[in-house]
């Protein structure tokens, strides 16, 4: 049996899926990146790999997320795509009629509007992370509610309190104030869910026309409180797909399949030995070649440089031997 591997390396979580050629999800892994994407990629891959037998092969690899270049270099990707496209592809394969996708991740939140299955318009949060998962994570920790139970706690609320969602810092002080006033915890939790939903619609939505069918995905979609808040504010039915937490990775796997089948191409996948045996490290240093002083990152495997990025003049990117050379531009052009 053949599989396509989809990898989504985000700021907070790293997701991996093995997808069959009919789009069925064979296995998924959801890990916390914990600031170490190199480790997350090798751990994630080894967990995913564990139950595969000899005749089950990976036919294609797609990567997405902010760590997509890194994952592409470490695994050997056939397609490297931004999160918007990956999420849109995953959702429209699952729900061909979908018009709106709300995706809330660790540091990014996105709104994707589709027409006839392709992205028509999109928006991402610009400078503030108030409406994202990191904020919820932090508040859950502060309130002593495990993040997994945060949403269910919110559902217990009968009358949510009003929390200002304009800014993460203001929201937090609002929550502390409400706590000290003696409001029940579940009402404060639900209040913060509604604040996040409102903030998302103001900050990311910015008056864009949200139409049904509407899909809610990303790590935060696990939070039933947020889902309820969106349903209440929008007055629409909000669908949460079964694998909502790994939709980016699913999209990447679909795109990999598309490229491999369409171009009748053999995968660039580097294989188990390369990924699991080697010791990967990333080194960053300031280049003193000119006044730009770019922070250049080098990805190494057992001391051998695989890729460079971060240099504006591309001196380092181009310094690798042409055979093994993979510049960011080339990786993206796949």
């Amino acid at each position: 049996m053949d599989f396509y591997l989809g990898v989504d390396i985000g700021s907070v979580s790293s997701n991996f899926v093995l997808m069959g050629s009919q789009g069925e999800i064979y296995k998924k892994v959801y890990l916390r990146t914990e600031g170490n994407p190199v480790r997350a990629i090798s751990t994630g891959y080894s967990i995913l790999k564990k139950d595969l037998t000899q005749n089950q092969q990976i036919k294609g690899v797609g990567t997405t997320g902010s760590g997509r270049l890194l994952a592409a270099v470490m695994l050997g990707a056939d397609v490297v795509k931004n999160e918007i496209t990956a999420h849109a592809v995953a959702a429209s394969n699952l729900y061909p009629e979908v018009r709106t996708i709300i995706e809330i991740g660790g540091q990014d939140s996105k709104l994707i509007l589709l027409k006839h299955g392709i992205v028509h318009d999109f928006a991402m949060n610009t400078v503030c992370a108030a409406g994202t998962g990191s904020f919820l994570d932090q508040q859950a920790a502060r309130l002593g509610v495990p993040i997994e139970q945060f949403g269910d706690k919110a559902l217990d609320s009968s009358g949510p309190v009003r929390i200002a969602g304009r800014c993460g810092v203001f929201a937090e002080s609002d929550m502390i104030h409400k706590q000290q006033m003696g409001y029940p915890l579940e009402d404060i939790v639900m209040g913060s869910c509604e604040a996040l939903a409102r903030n998302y619609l103001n900050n990311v939505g910015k008056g864009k026309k949200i139409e049904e069918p509407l899909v809610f995905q990303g790590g935060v979609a696990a939070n039933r409180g947020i889902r309820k808040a969106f349903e209440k504010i929008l007055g629409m039915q909000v669908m949460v797909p079964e694998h909502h937490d790994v939709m980016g990775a699913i999209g990447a796997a679909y795109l990999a399949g598309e490229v491999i089948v369409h171009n009748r191409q053999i995968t660039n996948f580097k294989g188990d030995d390369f990924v699991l045996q080697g010791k990967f490290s990333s080194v960053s240093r300031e280049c003193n070649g000119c006044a730009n002083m770019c922070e250049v990152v080098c990805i190494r495997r057992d001391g051998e440089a695989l890729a460079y990025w971060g240099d504006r003049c591309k001196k380092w990117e181009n310094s690798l031997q042409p055979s093994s050379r993979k510049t960011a531009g080339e990786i993206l052009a796949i």
Partner: protein
Amino acid sequence: MKITFPHMGNMQIAIKALFKELKIETIPPPPVSQRTLELGVKYSPEFACLPLKVNVGNFIEALELGADTIIMAGGWGPCRFGYYAQIERDILNDLGFTFDMVILEAPESRITDLLNQLRLIGEKVSLWQMGKAVNFAWHKLKAVDYWEKCYERYLGPALDKQAVNDLYSRGLQQIDEADCKREVTRRLQKLETEIEQIPRHNKPVLNIGLVGEVYTILEPGTNYNIIRQLGELNVIISRSIYMSDWVNDHLLKGKLIKSNHQHIINCAEPYLNHWVGGHGQETIGYAVDFARQKYDGLIQIGPLTCMPEIVAQSILGKVSTEQGIPCMTMYFDEHSGSAGINTRLEAFIDMLNRKQCQQLMSEGGF
């Protein structure tokens, strides 16, 4: 006297030429770097917009190199830019630097007023010499603009992006080093033939209009070199503003060349009928103009908290729907990770490409 000035794209080429003709020594600030930004951020008010911070960084670095006179443009209207020079002077004075500051204000009536302002800087310079120097600098400015336009047009379709990038920097240096008008023109013609001959790919190429705040558009150091990034994603870029336009409209009140400014202002109707400071009205005007020319998309850029661009942004949505052109807005501030910018640009380009594909298919192109 050693003159310095703030960076704004490749403006320095023309300024250097101007003062060289006037036999005045210039010390241009080092190119905008991380250090420039760090210095600027450290000594500027936190809520000021990015251009001010970059200016302050430029000045500190140039004063460190021994400059003693700063030339800065003035301004007017609701945009904070009009107050930049004064604020910058105070900041630098507080830091203990000693220097003179000359603020060039747009003349209310005649162009000779500006020439006189400039003449005060130099010593024993006749008005005629002054005119000659301005003429040469203006010629270089136009040459640089032309070369930038070539770069924006040929980078997207080029097969080997690095070759175009290298040729572009080499070309700028050649224009910079040319010492008379005829030499500038000769070199520019040669460069253009060279860039035309760079092999092209046969992938789809998109046309995108870049609109927004002038400094962010002109200075690659503040926009993460967005033009190069887009070119590498196979995009041909047209900017709403070039340096000669800015100098002509801002410093010379449109007196030097006949510009299309009035046409653009007319285009902004009925969406934005009033001047809102900065280039807010121009942003809308160009958006409509680009849409009518059937561009594939628009990107609006500006520094975070830029008031005129915020006004324009809130109107762009309507322009986008009614004129049928996809728009994306990006604000820039001190922010070292370029991942978010790459993702947004890539996603926008991807969206336009997929749209184009679908349109071709529905028209029976395949």
